């Protein structure tokens, strides 16, 4: 009877140990705000979006896989209203800062023209593989060309996070 109790205790501890050994990889990305809205703009106007002081929104990335990862940005399509389009060169993004990351920031503090090709923003550094949250902060700029037709212009911005193969 004592042996049975002992065996069931071992089984129970073993079960707990097995249940606790399931490890999940942390590979996470998110955005702090849905809102990228230039609002009403006049022809010829240039507007910067940086509502949170120096930046407008923040992409949060986390990984504990021990592998290098990177973040890219693109505009899937130019700002479009019906058949009218605002050219890509009038629509720009910039990385202002990266919080809690020790990787490489590309073109920091510089405005870059949006493109449908993903543009490299950030490559992780050694301390970015251990599960700490890396916050990449962006601001945006839009200028309305002189001959642009009025309308509701819309576009899709995509942030991509992947490891290298």
């Amino acid at each position: 009877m004592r042996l049975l109790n002992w065996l069931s205790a071992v089984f129970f501890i073993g079960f707990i140990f097995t249940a606790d050994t399931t490890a999940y990889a942390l590979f996470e990305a998110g955005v702090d705000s849905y809102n990228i809205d230039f609002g009403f703009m006049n022809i010829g106007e240039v507007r910067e979006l940086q509502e949170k002081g120096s930046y407008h929104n923040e992409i949060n990335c986390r990984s504990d896989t021990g592998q290098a990862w990177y973040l890219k940005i693109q505009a899937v399509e130019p700002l479009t209203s019906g058949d009218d389009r605002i050219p890509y060169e009038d629509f720009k993004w910039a990385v202002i800062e990266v919080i809690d990351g020790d990787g490489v920031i590309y073109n920091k503090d510089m405005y870059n023209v949006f493109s449908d090709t993903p543009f490299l923003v950030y490559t992780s550094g050694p301390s970015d593989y251990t599960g700490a949250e890396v916050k990449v902060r962006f601001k945006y700029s839009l200028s309305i060309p002189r001959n642009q037709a009025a309308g509701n212009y819309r576009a899709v911005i995509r942030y991509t996070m992947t490891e290298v193969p």
Partner: protein
Amino acid sequence: MKKSKMIKLFFIFLFCFVFFISDAAAFQFNVDPPKLILNVKPGEKKSGYIRITNTSAKGATHIKAYSLDLIYLPDGSNDFVPLGSTPWSIGSWLKINPDEFDIPPGGEKTVRVQVDVPPEAKGGYYGVVFFENYSPYSAKKNQSTLTIGVRIGTIILVESADTAVYEARFDAVSVVKKDNNYQLQCAVQNLGNILIRPFGTAQISDDKNNVVQTNKINPNKEGIFPRTTRKLSMNCSGPLKEGRYLARVLLDYGADTLLGGQTSFNATANE
């Protein structure tokens, strides 16, 4: 009375905390694993599983899953091209189920990725499965509004060890001066049919054959796709006195033998 006021204030504070502070992330999600290796023999089927978790504090996440081909860019990152664009494309062999779904906050969904490798396949095939979530369109009049999409990729590596051919060579090994520093550059050509990750060291010796520097090459083990060439660069770890040097590069790329190359160069005084 005072106590009940305090309790009220506490709940107002709690309400503000939950609805404003916890709203810090509009949405976020986790993809596990970010890299999936499937060892499959030609003519076989194999499945892998990817777990998507909605780690947002509130709001369901609508995820779309799709696959693309991968290529390397000179900066070491990848571009994502339509399926069938590369010789190493997994293409139509790959099936994702389900490919569109909702996940409540804190919830998760397991997605099955199945590859059906044809009998004539040899070596390695590569691609990425993306999981993408979009914010909803806002419908304000006469305004320029953007929809935000976040996508996280799981790199898919389908390899058959039985048919893998490891073969590589140096196209070029050189040392160039850049901003008063020396940079070692080696172009490695993958002649095999499988992704290789060459890594190793470059020893720099002076004209008396004394090793003055040992530098790591490709420590992150970045890959080179089959039948492509990639330039691996690294800065020398310190300054070099004027003189003639020999750089010897030795790389392990997964084959039985190592890949070796060398080049001599002159170090000159800084400008």
